């Protein structure tokens, strides 16, 4: 029994030691300070398109690029949806190059269609992926009011890093 208690304590201590949160490292795209690339966004009804240049100016924007079957993307999306009030002064642009059926399922699951400041769509030409040379998702990019890139991150962002902007 004593051996077990020692083993338990070792495990708990080791586990706690492994929990130290690493600060989120920015991903250098080389496009900092440059405007959002020009591309078409196919909306969820499949018939409508908007152009990235038509996204509203005068509001900071968060671009979230995801894959519908990526658990890290889904976990970050959940964090964002649960704290949507903290994005109320920003425009959320949620994009992927996946098929529309998967995007619709994703949008329904997170109830994204009910949110006002959210644009969900398909980056038909994978322009975001190509422009920022993305190998993995989720990709989160912060743009200022003039739609110029401030900073970008790859991988799931911790809630603390996510809301610091």
């Amino acid at each position, binding site marked *: *029994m004593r*051996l*077990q208690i020692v*083993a*338990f304590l070792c*495990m*708990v201590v080791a*586990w706690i030691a492994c*929990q130290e949160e690493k600060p989120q490292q920015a991903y250098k795209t080389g496009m900092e300070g440059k405007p959002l690339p020009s591309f078409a966004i196919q909306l969820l009804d499949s018939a409508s398109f908007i152009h990235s240049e038509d996204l509203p100016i005068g509001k900071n924007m968060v671009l979230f690029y995801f894959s519908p*079957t990526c*658990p*890290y993307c*889904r*976990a970050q999306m*959940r*964090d964002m949806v649960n704290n949507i009030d903290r994005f109320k002064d920003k425009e959320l642009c949620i994009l992927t190059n996946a098929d529309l059926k998967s995007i619709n399922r994703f949008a329904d*699951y997170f109830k994204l269609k009910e949110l006002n400041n959210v644009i969900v769509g398909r980056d038909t030409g994978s322009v975001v992926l190509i422009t920022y040379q993305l190998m993995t998702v989720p990709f989160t990019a912060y743009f200022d009011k003039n739609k110029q890139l401030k900073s970008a991150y790859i991988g*799931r962002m911790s809630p603390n890093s996510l809301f610091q902007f």
Partner: protein
Amino acid sequence: MVAGSLPKQNIFSYILLLRWLKKSTIIEIIAILYMSMFLYTAISKWADYTMTQEQMALMPLMTPIAHIVVWLLPATELILTLLIFFYQTRKKGLYAATILMILFTLYIIDMMLFYPHLPCSCGGFLTQLSWPGHLIFNTTFIVLGILAIRMHKSNAITQ
């Protein structure tokens, strides 16, 4: 009786005690392995609740109940840890743990056959294992569980 030698009955008892000690040590080691695994995976799942829930929601048939399973599964693992921890309930704990591992293994086989591209939601470093890796890991634990149950039985008879 020659000085320095043990009476026959005492030697027999000594061998029995040695055998009993060996078995009990093996059972103890297997119990610690099971407890470590369940405790680790349960805490890992709860530590990143959002991630676990979303991983589970990706699993076929699990989407509508992911928010329940995300609590139920770690709770079950913690209860099993406690059952194995106390000697009085260890046998029941080992039975339940082995059955749970068999169920997990059946689920893994299903995932390997039909959804190999999807990730698992085991928690902690176990998430890094491939599906065949999971299968080997689980099979090892099932064998250990059965071994511990059998030893526990014969240990009780010997006692």
